[in-house]
């Protein structure tokens, strides 16, 4: 489909890709500038502007999309990539909503990009179960138990159909970036500039003396701070660890604040629940089966990790003292001298 309008609305599509590869694309300075603007706007406001309906602008859009991806790849930061993906997906969603009535074949073509075929059922659509589960957020609105499910298909509204495709676009961009390639210096410089914008924007990372935590726990905390949606089992394991490490509930909630579906109330309730029930820390083998083990520390359970690296002295002086995990090893050393 050499339909420039379609390609400019959906620059991630395979049609857009072949449009560009057939015609070739020039990387000129003015484009790099505009693409950098696109990325920084995406980071700051979470939005990417729509394209004027002029064929030059539409051609340019394809170039800007491609260059923006290069810039983001040079910056190579997960938070930045995720935020950029959200902004691009949001723009797609706007186009899908308007195209749904004006050019319904566009929506079908975007769905086909992800191997999804929506069946029309009155004012609703039917989507295959697997695709539904892959591309809907895990929220009460989309809870499968409350949906109409029959013959392997789930009924969704036309708005939800767009939402599903938006999620698919977001996941696709997140998955494809960063592109590993050698880029021109001008693009690398743009990447460095957008990366430099980040510290002001990124949510405050909670300090809980992570240096002392086992790699799996550090990784989970890091992922949360990058707004990665941790699986339930990982969250429970992390909360148990933090409870056992003597971290206060408020502070644990702060760590979970980065979760895309964070709820203050639920987190407090669940952490308190784990605390009062005195849940056991899953063993390393269990953590491994959850897919959250990232290193071969051979400590049996993540709780033994600190004792393993710091020896008994640190353990004796710090354990059961709430807030002790807030200290950096240097601070702990200072204290030891007193």
């Amino acid at each position, binding site marked *: 489909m050499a339909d420039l309008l379609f390609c400019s609305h959906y620059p991630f599509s395979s049609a857009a890709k072949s449009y560009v590869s057939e015609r070739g694309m020039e990387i000129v300075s003015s484009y790099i500038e505009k693409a950098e603007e696109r990325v920084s706007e995406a980071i700051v406001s979470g939005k990417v502007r729509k394209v004027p309906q002029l064929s030059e602008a539409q051609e340019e859009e394809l170039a800007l999309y491609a260059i923006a991806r290069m810039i983001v790849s040079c910056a190579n930061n997960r938070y930045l990539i995720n935020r950029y993906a959200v902004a691009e997906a949001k723009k797609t969603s706007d186009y899908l909503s308007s195209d749904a009535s004006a050019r319904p074949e566009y929506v079908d073509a975007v769905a086909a990009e992800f191997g999804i075929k929506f069946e029309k059922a009155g004012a609703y659509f039917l989507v*295959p*179960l*697997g695709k539904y*589960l*892959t591309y809907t957020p*895990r929220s*009460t609105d989309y*809870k*499968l*138990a*409350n*949906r*109409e*499910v*029959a*013959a*392997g*298909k789930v*009924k969704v509204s036309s708005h939800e159909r767009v939402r599903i495709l938006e999620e698919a676009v977001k996941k696709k961009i997140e998955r494809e970036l960063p592109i590993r390639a050698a880029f021109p210096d001008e693009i690398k410089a743009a990447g460095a500039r957008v990366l430099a914008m980040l510290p002001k924007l990124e949510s405050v990372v909670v300090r809980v003396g992570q240096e002392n935590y086992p790699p799996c726990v550090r990784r989970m905390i890091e992922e949360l701070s990058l707004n990665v*949606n941790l*699986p*339930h*089992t990982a969250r429970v394991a992390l909360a148990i660890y933090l409870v056992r490490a003597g971290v206060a509930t408020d502070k644990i909630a702060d760590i979970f604040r980065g979760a895309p579906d964070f709820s203050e109330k639920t987190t407090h309730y669940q952490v308190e629940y784990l605390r009062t029930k005195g849940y056991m820390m899953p063993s390393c*083998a269990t953590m*491994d*089966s*959850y*897919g959250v*083990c*990232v*290193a*071969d520390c051979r400590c049996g359970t993540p709780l033994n990790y600190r004792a393993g690296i710091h020896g008994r002295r640190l353990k004796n002086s710090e354990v059961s003292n709430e807030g002790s995990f807030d200290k950096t090893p240097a601070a702990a050393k200072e204290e030891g001298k007193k």
Partner: protein
Amino acid sequence: MSGLIQTPEEKFLHRKFSDYYSKSTVSLRGLEKREFGFGGWEKKIEFRHLAFKNETELRARLVSEAPLYISHSVAYYEFPDARPMPHKNWEGSDLIFDLDTDGSACGHVCGKFTCQKCLDAVKSDVVKLIEEFLLPDFGFSKSELAVNFSGSRGYHVHVVSDAVYDLDREARREIADYVSGTGLSFERLFWNDKKKFFGPLPSQGGFGGKFARAFVTRLSDDSFAVSIARKLRKPEEKEKLKSAISIGNWDNIGITNREKKLSEKFEEMKLTMAGRIDANVTADVSKLIRMPDSIHGGSGFAAKRLSAPDAISEFEPMRHAPVFGGAGSAQLRVKATEAIPALNIRDFSFGPIPSGETRELPEACAIYLICKKAACISP
């Protein structure tokens, strides 16, 4: 592993199990992409991250080591023996449903020796899972389902389908929650529109439809009907409400306190509508699960693969799952180390046996007791 075998019981079981594996065949879809775990007397999974290139290699290992428990990953990996987990490169997983009895269907506590009533209860749970969820709701075909006895007291349903192959944990958790009715909410299925009270149609899919159909059926029961509204004693009022429900209008007769009453019925009936599964197993994409047709070391029974999902109605664990000889086979002298209730294995009835007493039993029965750690070999 064989170096660790010490007790006469372990030695004996090792020989018997090895013998079984030398005579049986192993077949498993995507065997070379699976992770395996072996277990022994103390632990069901002692060693994991094992991988085999083909059936011959796996079988040779089973014959030489004869582990008491053999599990394989529900997952397919590029490098099934790599460690830690992320290095395995997960490609996809079968969707698993683990159904077990909690040993309470019979009203007393079964303990070690699951009674017939409990075994039957879990069997009907499997039928319900397949006939009310897997086939109609999820749209799987029977050929995508493989059912096997767990070897102990439950069943595993393996769904091998492209539709679910690459679903992540969270997606599988949704499927598990759906089956067990977790997160099911009355408020999301019913709504008020000024005067009218709308709800699910009996013809629609999902729990809404299940509830509507069950509700309409139960209206025939007068005591149920009257508990909704007194006027529902009259057949014509019942019919009036039924026909309204069929188009999604849940109150055309003026039910007092309708939301409270209907939501109470909903809460009560959702327990019977839901399926009983272990949700954690379904959600776990890297779960190690008993290898079908391998021996369960806690019973000496095979985790018997059923020829087809429908075959479950004819399947009797105590008769069809024992691997070793029944009546007429070699006898074995065992001494009960605890009180053993009356049992029937492979159509051989024995017991109760008081603790400390010795009996000559057919192999299947003796091995069952040894595996249960309820008897030892008596000289």
